[in-house]
């Protein structure tokens, strides 16, 4: 792997096999949908391959050579993913995705700790995955849901935070909005939540891939994230939790692996982190997730942030030039206030139509409600088109985006 200074997005792109071939229509692939899922570098694909070709075996209880090797690779991946966010391995639970991590907390912590009238505080910009589990928990426990408002530029309004926190047991909020790109001011919210006696869960699905994360200094009780948005495979994610809290929680899913001793009538549970991992784990994908964070750590989360900030600056400027043709950009327009997500609409053209036309030029973006229907509704948007950037993107992708938007404008005569 090259050193940072020698790296460029174009060099990085060479590590990703998907960019080596043109699209079905013969265009260069301008992949601008990493907020939905990222592409995977060769080292991650090869890690899967090597596991299945060379040492595929079930873990923890096998005493033969390939089982030992698989166990070591699996637990070493956990240690590396934990280190990536400055957590201890015992505090890092493998899940399927960010969504499952949030559900784990809503069930295991929520069912045991929430009572009628307790408050669950969310924000108005949450992804469905950090909203619906809390709605269902509120139904189960008769707890009350409250929301930190979002203003029309996409910023959280914290003026009434202390009132909102009154009676609150848990605050669950995104690190970064997947619609607006807004970087949520965690440092402003977490201490006040703690002061009010609430614990805090961060939906880090759009955080960990793009920003340096240090769970010790963040001091949130939980941080959920997902491999497939950070160069890893689909099917694995992780939930960080503070050790004492995890220890005090009852288990969630149960079955093989998470037990210590089982009798017909009752069971004692394994120690952390295995207490929360039931059945055969997603061994191969966890190992590959470890390789993905190694790749990211080698680039450096700081470098990644600077790289994306630069592209966002360029994209905001170029899209600004299209304002005259009716292009609207949503969310904070300051690259320091946003991650690498950019929502927009082209005049009265529906976002789906924009996306379909962009596709013909090899430009992949997302269109729709981005799993944040209530936010869309509040903002009064039927749908938005969303471009999102990652380590392999560069100014040339923004240029392709602009060119394709101009094509859409021509077709729709705007």
């Amino acid at each position, binding site marked *: 792997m090259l050193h940072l200074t020698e790296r460029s997005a174009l060099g990085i792109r060479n590590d990703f096999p998907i960019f080596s071939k043109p699209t079905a229509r013969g265009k260069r692939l301008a992949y601008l949908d990493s907020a939905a899922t990222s592409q995977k570098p060769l080292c991650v694909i090869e890690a899967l391959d090597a596991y299945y070709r060379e040492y595929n075996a079930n873990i923890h209880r096998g005493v033969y050579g390939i089982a030992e090797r698989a166990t070591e690779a699996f637990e070493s991946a956990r240690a590396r993913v934990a280190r990536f966010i400055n957590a201890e391995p015992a505090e890092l639970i493998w899940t399927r995705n960010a969504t499952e991590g949030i559900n784990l907390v809503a069930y295991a912590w929520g069912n045991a700790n929430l009572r009628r009238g307790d408050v669950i505080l969310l924000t108005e910009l949450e992804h469905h995955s950090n909203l619906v589990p809390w709605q269902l928990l509120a139904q189960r426990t008769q707890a009350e849901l409250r929301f930190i408002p979002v203003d029309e530029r996409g910023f959280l309004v914290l003026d009434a935070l202390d009132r909102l926190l009154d009676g609150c047991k848990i605050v669950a909020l995104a690190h970064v909005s997947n619609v607006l790109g807004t970087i949520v001011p965690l440092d402003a919210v977490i201490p006040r939540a703690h002061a009010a006696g609430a614990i805090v869960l961060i939906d880090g699905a759009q955080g960990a891939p793009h920003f340096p994360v240090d769970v010790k200094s963040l001091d949130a009780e939980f941080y959920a994230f997902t491999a497939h948005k950070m160069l890893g495979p689909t099917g694995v994610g992780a939930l960080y939790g503070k050790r004492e809290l995890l220890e005090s929680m009852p288990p969630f899913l149960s079955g093989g692996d998470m037990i210590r001793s089982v009798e017909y009538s009752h069971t004692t549970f394994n120690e952390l982190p295995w207490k929360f991992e039931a059945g055969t784990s997603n061994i191969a994908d966890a190992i590959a997730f470890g390789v993905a964070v190694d790749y990211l750590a080698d680039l450096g989360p700081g470098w990644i942030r600077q790289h994306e900030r630069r592209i966002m600056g360029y994209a905001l400027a170029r899209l600004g030039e299209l304002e005259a043709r009716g292009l609207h950009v949503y969310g904070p327009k300051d690259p320091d206030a946003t991650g690498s997500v950019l929502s927009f609409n082209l005049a009265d053209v529906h976002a789906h139509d924009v996306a379909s036309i962009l596709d013909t030029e090899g430009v992949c973006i997302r269109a729709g409600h981005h799993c944040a229907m209530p936010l869309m509704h509040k903002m009064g948007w*039927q749908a938005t088109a969303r471009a999102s950037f990652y380590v392999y993107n560069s100014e040339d992708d923004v240029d392709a985006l602009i060119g394709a938007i101009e094509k859409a404008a021509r077709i729709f005569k705007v």
Partner: protein
Amino acid sequence: MDDFYRDYILDHYRNPRNFGHLEAPTVSAEDLNPLCGDRIRVELNVDDRGIVRDIRFSGKGCAISQASASMLTESVLGMPLEEVAKLSKDAVLDNVGIGISPTRMKCAMLGLRVLKSAAIGTLAGWPDEE
């Protein structure tokens, strides 16, 4: 997909036919596209022989769903409800031509789905049926 956005499609998108509401529709139905949450509503006036005499649709959506719905309203005017209930995908595809990807097919079929559910619901509710 860009083949799809031909002029007559865009014309139906920008100037949808039979768009709006009926005063006192005999039948109506509404549904949403699970892909994007776009909604379409269809209202019909059906005469006592079961013939579609008037139709309106409403809602906001992409060019594909809007144009497909607009063209569809034109083709079912004067059609017996029983035929409407049996319309196949082709009723839409014949209108809009080819070039719709599988995911966007849900957009194209939204109007048809709503229209058929209105027709089928009504037929099932008619006392003299069966």
